[in-house]
């Protein structure tokens, strides 16, 4: 869990907030621990070095957040493509089965096949539909 204490500087909280939620939840606290340790080791340094330290930290966090977003988006879109392909296959299979049964009246589908067809259609529909917050 990410539990930033109220003493965490607002700027750090803001920059950590830019990371993807999963990354922030897992590593946010550890990153803050590192920044705090580094800041403590720097305590006797000059004002200019302190400013340089914070600029370096912010630049590093900003760059890393960008990299992490790119990685998580590419993973997400791959999973999304896989999910939608599976959904499309299931719906197609259901339609093909219905069409086949309609064309060949002698081979009426049994209860089990009808249930499987309906299940495939519903599952396919659930896999294909957009989830909240998901790009169409």
């Amino acid at each position, binding site marked *: 869990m990410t539990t930033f204490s109220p003493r965490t500087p607002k700027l750090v909280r803001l920059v950590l907030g830019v990371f993807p939620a999963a*990354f922030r939840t*897992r*590593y946010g606290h*550890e*990153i803050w*621990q*590192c*920044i705090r*340790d*580094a800041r403590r*080791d720097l305590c006797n340094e000059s004002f200019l070095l302190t400013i340089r330290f914070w600029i*370096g*930290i912010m*630049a*590093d*966090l*900003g*760059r*890393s*957040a960008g*990299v*992490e977003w790119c*990685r998580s988006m590419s993973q997400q879109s791959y999973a999304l493509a896989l999910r939608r392909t599976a959904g499309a296959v299931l719906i197609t299979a259901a339609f093909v089965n219905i069409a086949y049964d309609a064309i060949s009246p002698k081979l009426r589908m049994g209860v089990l096949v009808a249930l499987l067809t309906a299940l495939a259609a519903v599952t396919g529909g659930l896999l294909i539909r957009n989830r909240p917050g998901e790009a169409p």
Partner: protein
Amino acid sequence: MTPKQGRSAADSHLPLTPATFHILLSLFDGERHGYAIMTEVAERTRGKVKLGPGTLYTSLKRLVENGVVEETGEQRRPDDDERRRYYKLTPHGRAVARAEARRLEEMLRLARTKRLIGPQPA
């Protein structure tokens, strides 16, 4: 897994980024927490390489996902007032670090044959 299979599995991670290789070198001696990795890298390279916390943890995340590094859980050392998560190399991670070192050695050998740099010191 045969040694040959192990080597090819390790080779599939190459080439490593300099930051990643420094993290693996740091963990080669034993388990460390994030800030200990950062300070060890800075000390070993005499301040030439300074890993930022963002770079460190995005690299560690990828290394953990690929089974190169594993978490050993949270610990509290006597000289520390806070629990910290420690990381260590897996056997596969050691193979990856060795494979990268061999790759760099080969690059260096090629540079020497081209007289890009001087001969190896005795």
